[in-house]
């Protein structure tokens, strides 16, 4: 399903990443996934959090630049070739991937993916009976 992801623009300065998590931790917001895309000059922290709207407000108050984008989250079996099959579905539907990040442990791999046609991707995944992670699994209400 479509999930809200927060992205935070960060200059490459020591301690800056820690400050973000410090703010979120202090506000009792849980981070369930994150990744940092980096260049020599700046980085973009992307993360899935338990209360995206509140997290956004809190970070904004602390003068971080925060944006919300929509990503898709799904699970695949933790076996060789499983991710390949999933991505083949997207390629066949001509859906472009902007980035993804993920992690496997035990029997499953969890993937967060940003693509150019999220609604279409969700439909394709449902058609192929892939296990989609819904926001209720990740957010706190």
């Amino acid at each position, binding site marked *: 399903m479509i999930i809200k992801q927060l992205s935070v*623009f960060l200059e490459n300065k020591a301690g800056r990443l820690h400050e973000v998590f410090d703010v979120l931790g202090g506000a009792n917001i849980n981070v369930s996934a994150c990744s940092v895309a980096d260049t020599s000059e700046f980085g*973009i922290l992307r993360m899935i959090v338990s209360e995206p709207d509140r997290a956004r407000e809190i970070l904004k108050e602390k003068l971080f630049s925060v944006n919300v984008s929509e990503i898709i989250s799904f699970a695949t079996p933790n076996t060789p070739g499983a991710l390949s099959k999933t991505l083949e579905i997207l390629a066949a539907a001509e859906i472009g991937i902007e980035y993804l990040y993920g992690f496997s442990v035990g029997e499953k791999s969890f993937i967060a993916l940003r693509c150019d046609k999220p609604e279409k991707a969700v439909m394709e995944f449902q058609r192929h009976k892939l296990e989609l992670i819904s926001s209720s699994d990740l957010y706190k209400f």
Partner: protein
Amino acid sequence: MTNKIWNPHFETMSREDMRQVQSERLRDAVERVYYNVPYYREKMQSQGLGPEHIKSVDDLSKLPFTVKQDLRDNYPFGLFAVPMSEIIRVHASSGTTGKPTVVGYTRADIGVWSEVMARTLTSAGAGKNDFIQIAYGYGLFTGGLGVHYGGEKIGASVIPISGGNTKRQLQLMEDFGSTVLACTPSYAAYLAEAIEESGIKREDLKLRIGVFGAEPWTENMRREIEKRLQIKAIDIYGLSEIIGPGVSFECPHQCGLHINEDHFIPEIIDPETLEVLPEGELGELVFSTITKEGLPIIRYRTRDLTRLNFEKCACGRTLVRMNKCTGRSDDMLIIRGVNLFPSQIESVLLEMDETTPHYLLIVDRLNNLDTLELQVEVEDRFYSDTIGELQNLRKKIQHQVESATGLSVNVKLVEPKTIERSEGKAKRVIDKRKLF
């Protein structure tokens, strides 16, 4: 829309006639300073110059420059060209660094001042039926009294309220039905806010024109003031060393400030080489007063940066136009031999939707080559979550700056609100080269 012209003879004169007027008056002015001001005489003599060498405006560039320090060195009255018995007024600018600069006016000078301010207010659209609320400071500062004389000359009703006391400003604006507000642009912005907060309804005010100057302001600020006060905001320019307000003024077309060049001849020079620059080039504005008696001043370096446009304006005036001043020559940097004014960067950033005018320029020297880094804050909504978009934005800013300045620059996007804010003079440049 075109307003009336106060003095069509001089304001719409052909370029050729203007040159003649200027040449005649310049000859006269040079003679006066040579014979009456020892400072000018010595300076001219040391360069082998006499009044006979100045025949027309073409000879102006032979004359030495005058700078603010010269006024301070001759404090208080050393540069006056008439006996004190002829001086009927002195004004002085605040001396933030040392002694104030003192200027003196004869009765004829006050007449010139009234004339150029009458032109200014007429051009702004004011006339004898207007109420002009003058919220520039009165006193040693030239702003208040300068507008005052112009207002009286055109027959308007002048309200000499002076600056400050915002509550009373609003009360008189409403009760007297002020139609013209004259003050600094920052005070105008402040008054706009105060009006909104006071609960006064806009329809109860008759305000229609703003005459704003005495400090630099941007086009964005103008649009903001015009929108909030629902007026036409006219930019005026002046400096006490030349006469005060009234040196140049906008017409309703807002396409540059017409210089009263039958009284003040402008030149644009390169602030480094001091060479006169070709028409249309950006450089430091220099003025020579050609009618002033009390304190005639030759080739005064204003430190303000602008360019001149000699084309006839849609308003009908032929008076040369100067652009809104974009910065100060004191701020000029020389990067790899190219002159760079921080204001050039600022205008690029103001024009782009994605960027804010908050920036920091860092100049350094690596392997004998100057490097230029531009740190810039991006408008919040443009901080994307993809590297590609941010890199493209970086390239776009880089490209815009390069095409505006001719210098390659390394653009660095920084987090919002991390560049120091300042009410007055913001620190925009760090030149690390000076350390070596």
